[in-house]
């Protein structure tokens, strides 16, 4: 359906991208891993929005989920453990024309990269940050992560993780200048699609926590929520995500929440008996750092030389 729209009108595009144009090598994630679905969803959004592959950059740290850029045929930066955010922010700082996506995990973002995460939220640069939250370090084979459940057995805590989990969304909501927080589950592609789409459309730093299945190392964490939809709470509102019936039908447990209400967003996010999914918070009025950092990107060589000469005048004897 090249450029064919729902009303049967046709856009004549010089370049039209299909899903193929965003796909790279066959992902080497385990069968049943939630990452596959997240990847496909992002590729679909790229296709729907016709993002130029050469103007799209996927940035990641280290971990299973951080393999993400390798499976996209856009530009990618698979850097250091915990350090995706500074790199992504640096890319955006002088290249606001690039569409930046960050793939990070619960260890990458909330443990080794926690300092950068706090500041990336505060910088509020226009990008999508996807937290693949599988409650475990998977690439390094089953160590506790900051989001591991209390009592969850891992190789570092065989008798069960001793501490209650850190809540990444509540933490993000508490950071000054936070502008977008949403949650979804990898096993509901329709809901996940609407969530990531809204994140991409948001102007500012969009933080999306995806409860992600790792059938190999933390299957128990989301097993029940998959079989019993009542353990998932659908967060909805006129100003929230508009998800079609097919993505919401199974959820009886629903909560109306106005995403402009920050205090209430904390309360929704903080629930431990259910997995709340939906838009927790959105505010497009917060300062966006790349609007500040990119001032002057179009200055000419003449401007630069004039400025330099003017400065040298100051030091002239």
């Amino acid at each position, binding site marked *: 359906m090249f450029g064919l729209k729902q009303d049967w009108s046709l856009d004549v595009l010089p370049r039209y991208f299909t899903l193929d144009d965003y796909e*790279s*090598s066959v992902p080497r994630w385990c069968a049943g891993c939630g990452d596959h679905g997240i990847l496909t969803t992002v590729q679909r959004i790229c296709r729907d929005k016709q993002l*130029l*592959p*050469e*103007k799209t*950059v*996927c*940035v990641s740290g280290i971990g299973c989920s951080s393999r993400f*850029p*390798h499976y*996209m*045929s*856009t*530009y*990618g*930066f*698979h*850097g*250091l453990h915990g*350090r995706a*955010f*500074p*790199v*992504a*922010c*640096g*890319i*955006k*700082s*002088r*290249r606001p*024309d*690039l569409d930046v996506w960050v793939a990070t995990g619960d260890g990458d973002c909330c443990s080794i990269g926690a*300092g*950068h995460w*706090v*500041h990336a939220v505060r910088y509020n640069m226009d990008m999508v940050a996807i937290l693949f939250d599988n409650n475990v370090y998977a690439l390094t084979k089953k160590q506790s992560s900051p989001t591991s459940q209390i009592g969850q057995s891992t190789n570092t805590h065989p008798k069960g993780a001793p501490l209650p989990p850190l809540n990444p969304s509540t933490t993000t909501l508490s950071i000054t200048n936070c502008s977008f927080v949403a949650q979804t589950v990898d096993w509901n592609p329709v809901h996940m699609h609407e969530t990531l789409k809204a994140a991409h459309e948001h102007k500012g730093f969009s933080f999306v926590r995806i409860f992600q299945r790792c059938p190999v190392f933390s299957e128990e964490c989301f097993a029940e929520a998959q079989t019993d939809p009542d353990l998932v709470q659908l967060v909805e509102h006129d100003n929230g995500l508009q998800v079609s019936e097919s993505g919401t039908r199974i959820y009886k447990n629903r909560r109306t929440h106005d995403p402009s209400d920050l205090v209430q967003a904390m309360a929704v996010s903080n629930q431990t008996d259910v997995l709340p999914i939906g838009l927790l918070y959105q505010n497009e009025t917060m300062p966006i750092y790349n609007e500040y*950092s*990119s*001032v*002057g*990107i*179009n*200055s000419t*060589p003449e*401007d*630069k*030389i*004039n*400025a*330099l*000469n*003017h*400065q*040298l005048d100051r*030091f*002239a*004897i």
Partner: protein
Amino acid sequence: MSKATTKNGTAQTKPQTIDEHIVEIVCDSGEGAQKAGTLFATISAKMGNGIWTVEIIPAEIKPPARSREGASGNRIRVGSKEMTNAGDEANLVVALNEQVLYGRLSQDAYGPETTILLESVWATDPDANIRDAYTAALADFSARGLNVIELPIHEACSELMTDPRLGKNIFVLGILCYIYQRDTALAKQEIANIFAKKGEKVISTNHALLDAGVEFAIKHIPFTYTIPNMDVTDDQVVMNGNVAVALGVMASGMDMVSMYPITPATSASHYLAGVFDQAGGFVHQAEDEIAAIGFALGASYAGKTACTITSGPGMALKTEFIGLAVMSEIPIVIVNVQRGGPSTGLPTKVEQGDLLNAMYAATGDAPKIIMAPATIEESFYSIITARQLAEAFRTPVIVLTDANLATGQTLYKRPVTKEDWLAPPIDQSDWHAGTPAYAWNEETGISPRPIPGQKGGEYVLTGLAHTPESHVAYNPQANQVGCDMRSRKIAALEQTFTPPKVHGDESGDLLIVGWGSTLGAIEEAVDRARAKGHKVSSVHLRYLSPMEVGLEEIFAKFKKVMTVEINYSDPMGSVAHPRPSQLAMMLRAHLMQEVDFWSIVPGQPLGPNQIVGVIEDKLGTTKPSKKKNEKAGAGK
């Protein structure tokens, strides 16, 4: 450049003509010595003298008054030729209390040639402890052979100021203007400039203080000096090394500096933060040192080669990212304004202790380009070259300066700006189809770099071992090839080098090898030693990786080769296997030959006389015949 117009009709003696003098103003912090020192240096430079100034920085932020560790002020070396270092013992010191002098004495700043003009108000202080301390110090100074002249500065300033403490600095400037026959009209102009924001009243008060200082000096000071001008016709600029680095960033066309506050590097970013926007640039203050380089690398990856400016502890934190930049071949300029280490070490003090850190601090083999400017002027130009090399060789470039360059100020020829220096605009043309992300040239290791936005160049940069296509590869061959190619770039750059110039004769008994900020002191020491008849020369290295070429041939013409550095080594012969200084260690490995070394870590720049002593020790001629020129600042 006009003649001195100070009226000195009542001077007791005719001015003595001297080549140079080292002048210090020391006092408690907050008494304005920095301002007076800067003014004295500017006036001297404008009158045509060579200058080198350094700030004397107290060891604590708010030291108590009259404390030894509170010594604050300025050292100005002023002469009739280009000044390249802070010299040895001071010739003339103005001190506003006797305790701060102890702070400087402990740093060997003064000797028997030093004349001290000392504020005498403490002799009649209501507090007996202060009076006693003052009297005791005077006796001690005279026992040490210092020539002290007591001056009632406080009393004289009281006639003009309700709080004389606030006016002493400009009063002292008046004294110095008289002693060194400075142009008082020029001095008044500079005072008006520096106080421009404070309004007419402040300016006229300070003009009155300056005049009063001159009058006072005519009455109290029995000597005056004339320092002939340099013959300089070129336009000159005066600045410290950190400002030179910052201007170098602007001149290189890099338009982003990503930093985290750290002494003694921060002032470069401070300066840029105030002016960078005029060139379309931007200073990012990151959340930490790691993020500072990560942010810069992000910009560099996206085609805007960026710079990060830091010091030792920051380098330690950036190490992992530097390794990534080498591995994935991202151009970046990293400036390390070295300070004393290890750990927090000596934050405000000079050391050349991070050479091996720059060279080796990364996991695995991480070759990169390392440059070390030797002067403030080179600090400017090195950044322009660093950006070009980083992009041409697709690699990080580390520029090593230090606290001595960062805070010293001197004159150099005003750069004639060129558009060629600037980074070219980001290439957004279509990528050549079929060319992989790392199409390594087998001989040079160099490859063209796709920039996001270039259609057809899409690749995933990775810190994992990878193929030319940037595909993750764990096979033995791919890793070997990647390492080979990155190493090849260093060899390729080396091919473009010509041997460094030897200072002095090209053969002799001893060759001193140095790098970085010690250039001025080493060459001055070599000149003095040569004037005494010693067959000594020196060579100074600007590139440490790749290492300068032709060293085998240069070294072969000398009986002994010895590095002189400001970093730690076990003195030669002190233990069975002394740990060499850092450059010596590198040269030994690089040339596979014996290289001697001498190095210390006093947290201070080396003085020429100190190095002359080292040379004579090495040559076994510790009791040389007395000849001219051996003492810093001795009048002819």
